[in-house]
């Protein structure tokens, strides 16, 4: 009789441990605040990114929701002509461009390309670059087209926080 009672106690203890175990682990993870794909070695953004000049939103936010920002900006720009620089795809590319050993920007087919590093790892196929430029357009091209008044080509300061710094670096490099 007492043996059966002991077994029942043991069983109850086992069940409660099993139930409590996940709670303990989640509490642990909450403290660490790990990023999605945190085990992934990502290409570091090259110049134009520093502790002072951070990304347009916190890293954890960008990793999870960058597609939402780009999608929203896309419709605003195409249909309403809103051309703020903060969440513009062109500005992402300008900042996160990666150069190879020869000093040439790597294209999106190359797994070192900033977008490709993560999207290859996550097996998410993106078609942005079937139409959009996957590397910054060289300053030589910009100077050639500078006759217009467009900030894409001119030295006018833009509305976005990153843009003027980006442009300065774009025009001074090479």
């Amino acid at each position, binding site marked *: 009789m007492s043996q059966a009672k002991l077994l029942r106690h043991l069983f109850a203890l086992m069940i409660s441990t099993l139930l409590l175990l996940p709670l303990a682990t989640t509490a642990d993870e909450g403290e660490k605040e790990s990023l999605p794909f945190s085990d992934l070695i990502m290409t570091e953004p090259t110049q134009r990114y520093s502790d002072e000049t951070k990304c347009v939103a916190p890293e954890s936010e960008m990793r999870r929701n960058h597609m939402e920002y780009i999608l929203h900006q896309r419709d605003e720009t195409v249909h*309403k002509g809103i051309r703020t620089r903060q969440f513009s795809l062109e500005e992402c590319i300008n900042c996160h461009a990666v150069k190879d050993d020869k000093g040439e920007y790597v294209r999106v087919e190359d797994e070192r390309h900033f977008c490709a590093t993560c999207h290859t790892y996550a097996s998410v196929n993106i078609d942005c670059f079937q*139409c959009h430029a996957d590397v910054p357009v060289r300053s030589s091209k910009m100077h050639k087209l500078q006759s*217009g008044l467009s900030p894409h080509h001119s030295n006018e300061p833009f509305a976005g926080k990153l843009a003027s710094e980006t442009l300065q670096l774009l025009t001074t490099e090479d």
Partner: protein
Amino acid sequence: MSETSKPMDPSRRQFMTKAGGAAGAAAIAPGVFLTTPAQARPADQPVSSDKRWGILVDANKCGTGCNACVSACEEENGWGSANPSEDDSSAEQQAKWIRKVTIKDKATQHVTTLPMMCQHCETAPCVDVCPTGASFKREDGIVLVDKHICIGCRYCMMACPYKARSFIHEDLKDQLPWAPRGKGTVESCTLCVHRVDEGGTPACVEACNAETHQAMFFGDLHDENSEISRELEQHGGKEIRADLGLNTGVRYRGI
């Protein structure tokens, strides 16, 4: 290029007769006008119907054999000779945002040449027929293709009376950041929307002025003091295929 044979509608006649008097309203002396330079819209503000962008082409000044507007468009937007990715497509399949058209009057042998591109219609047939809403007119009258939504059915190409649109048949490389283009979508003149949004002038107009032909004017058709409106008031400008009643944003003189 047929002209309407309909009698001139009375409101238009009134407009024309009034135009002479109105033209002087903003003038303080002959040839001197009180105009304010167009203020660029802030980047975070949406476009509004306060403006309607248009181009006036003076075919009498347009140079025979001059291709400056076409080359400037190719260069600015990265198509044709400025992007060799379309090599496998036949000439009539390749992108054509703007083209030079030469017409000859058989009776007088008079040759007229003019640039032909998207006419940025107020009631655009391409917008009417688009099954997905990809072909649309912006508030400020610029007709565009949202290539994110375009399914490449090419219905708009059939609907356009000006043959202004083209379809991309093959994978492209090295597109420009301000002019994204891609396989399976329809495209046409954007009125250099990326320049216009920042207070600039379309590349074709700029090139025409640089060639000293001065055959193209760009501006706001709703602003009666803009150069294009004054030119239209004083010397007029026709729509091509005016019989269709599309109220085009691109007008021609000397045709």
